[in-house]
């Protein structure tokens, strides 16, 4: 197709955002109002659990009881409802704000607390900072701090699932800031050109630490980039749990049926700071926070459930529920902090599948050093062999 016009207009219309319920819970997309009530109630409950756990663990960091924390405040729907729509066996490659998926799949409050306290009961053996969760049992690949590295890995996994003819997809989560990294390009282009059974989920929460999204890109968000790769692209209201659920369910079906990847950009807002090392009031306005507070994923689903009379719990029970989650978290954290740290030998394990000679020698060196200088190190908090 050729043209004789030299057009300097920038790209046409913005990609619209899929939504099923409005801010007050009213249905505007009847066609997609068919999620079963048990699932919706569980999504509601788990989002509440996520919020309460986040508030307690955030306070715990402020009190110096854990070293670091990251909340998912305001973004609960784009992880909990996503996990609800996936199969439990679908392998999630997280960024670092998707603990809602773990809550849905049954990661216990104790397991969260052990990891945050870096104790000997953390199955990841206290190797990483708080919130760097992992669970092979729950199909949740380890969180790692480097941004976007998980995206092309999810492409590789999705490709493998296709070759193995599995009804299984790989799911890559990332923020809108991460879409600026080179690995985003790798992951998306490989998946599109090779036909990987991979679902790409972008939490566009308007901030990449302190960089607002209008400084992150000049095109139409991240969805327009996805279209550039020739991939099925959906933009979805990330604070509408039902829209999230429906979009992911349908995208998953598309992926497995067509053996091609799909992409969803969730439009949401990061209510909290980036992490406990951030102080976001320094770079954003109170009005913006207040305005987005009107668009709360938990409230919206709650209002919908109430309107439809699907809600299994009333306002009183809701208060009780929140109190229960708060207390559970407090108790789990207290107990986790009292546990010992993993034994010293765990420093040297798991570098490889088997110990190598250099590590055996270094283990011995450290042991001898600690024996000789016993009084200089406070080791009573470590598990003894």
């Amino acid at each position, binding site marked *: 197709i050729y043209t004789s016009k030299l057009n300097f207009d920038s790209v046409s219309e913005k990609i619209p955002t899929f939504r099923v319920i409005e801010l007050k819970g009213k249905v505007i997309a009847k066609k997609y109002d068919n999620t079963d009530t048990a699932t919706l109630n569980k999504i509601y409950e788990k989002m509440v659990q996520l919020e309460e756990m986040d508030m307690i663990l955030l306070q715990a960091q402020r009190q110096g009881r854990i070293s670091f924390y990251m909340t998912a405040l305001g973004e609960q729907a784009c992880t909990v409802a996503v996990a609800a729509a996936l199969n439990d066996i679908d392998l999630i*490659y997280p960024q670092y704000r998707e603990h809602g998926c773990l809550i849905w799949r049954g990661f216990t409050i104790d397991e969260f607390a052990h990891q945050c306290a870096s104790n000997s009961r953390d199955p*990841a053996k206290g190797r990483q900072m708080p919130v760097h969760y992992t669970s092979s049992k729950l199909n949740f690949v*380890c969180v790692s701090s480097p941004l976007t*590295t998980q995206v092309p890995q999810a492409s590789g996994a999705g*490709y*493998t699932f296709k070759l193995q003819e599995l009804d299984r997809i790989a799911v890559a989560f990332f923020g809108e800031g991460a879409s600026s990294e080179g690995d985003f390009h*790798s992951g998306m282009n490989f998946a599109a050109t090779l036909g990987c059974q991979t679902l790409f989920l972008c939490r566009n929460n308007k901030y990449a630490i302190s960089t607002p999204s209008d400084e992150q890109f000049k095109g139409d968000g991240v969805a327009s980039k996805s279209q550039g790769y020739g991939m099925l692209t959906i933009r979805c209201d990330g604070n509408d749990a039902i829209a999230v659920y429906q979009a992911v369910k349908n995208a998953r079906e598309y992926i497995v049926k067509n053996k091609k990847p799909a992409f969803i950009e969730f439009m949401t807002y990061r209510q909290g700071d980036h992490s406990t090392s951030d102080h976001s009031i320094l770079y954003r306005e109170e009005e913006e926070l207040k305005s987005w507070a009107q668009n709360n994923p938990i409230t919206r689903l709650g209002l919908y459930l109430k309107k439809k009379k699907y809600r299994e719990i009333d306002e009183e029970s809701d208060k009780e529920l929140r109190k229960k989650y708060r207390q559970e978290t407090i108790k789990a954290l207290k107990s986790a902090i009292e546990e010992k740290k993993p034994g010293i030998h765990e420093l040297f394990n798991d570098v490889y*599948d088997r110990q190598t000679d250099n590590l055996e020698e270094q283990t011995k060196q450290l042991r001898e050093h600690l024996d000789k200088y016993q009084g200089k190190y406070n080791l009573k908090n470590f598990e003894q062999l």
Partner: protein
Amino acid sequence: VCQIGRYFFFFQAEDGIRDFCLSRGLGDVYKRQEQGIAAFGIGIASVGATAIAEIQFADYIYPAFDQLVNEAAKYRYRSGNQFSVGGLTVRAPYGAVGHGGHYHSQSPEAFFSHAPGLKVVIPRDCIQAKGLLLASIRDKNPVIFLEPKALYRNAEDEVPTEDYELALHKAEVVQEGKDITLIGYGTQIRVLKEAAKEAEQDGIKCEIIDLQTIYPYDIETLVESVKKTGRCIVSHEAPVTMGVGAEISAALQEKCFLYLEAPITRVCGYDTPFPLAHELVYLPDKWKVYDAIQKTVNY
């Protein structure tokens, strides 16, 4: 199994692997993006499959550095052994080829030998190439396998057709001798052999050791040899400062100090980018090694 990388017309090594994969209905993926190639391979390995990722020239491996060092190397450790990428092997042609210049001659083994969780393996010839590659692929840890490109077209040997592996983390004494230990790997072993032949005419008997696995390496075999000879030279094409030779010298002087009759010498490339017009004088050739042997023996 999935072979990822480029189909290259430069070397025929690819044809063999490609035909092997296609004839067995295995995955075969061609891409031109190093950070993607490594990451894709990590993804495949993270779900328990085998991925052989190929980088066209080791000189182009750096975009994959983050994925290899921050992800592949740490996958098992950071997850408390819940996830790992043992099925990943990254192959790349490395080393001088006569006319490669900056970007077709590099030896990047030292960069990856400083990332706990990775392994680095380099074969010196055909028989080792097969045995070490099979061992690397089957090893349950991510391995960087660097292949001496200079030997692609001019190495020939009777390679057994049956399946066999050579052990990783085992150095091989390629030639025995009582006067001095020469340590190297890859193409450099040929150079060491030639230098040893020259030295033999002066009555010097050299012991030559091929490291084979660069990281983690077999210090025991090296120590045993140096305790016997009391003299040592380490030689590689990569620049001398902060190279593999520096590590080996440090470790050997720690363990064999009282057995040494002379300082350990490194005969390596200079601290310059790999040159084109000056390759002839840049390389640690047999005369430089021979000279070092003389100086060390006569110390």
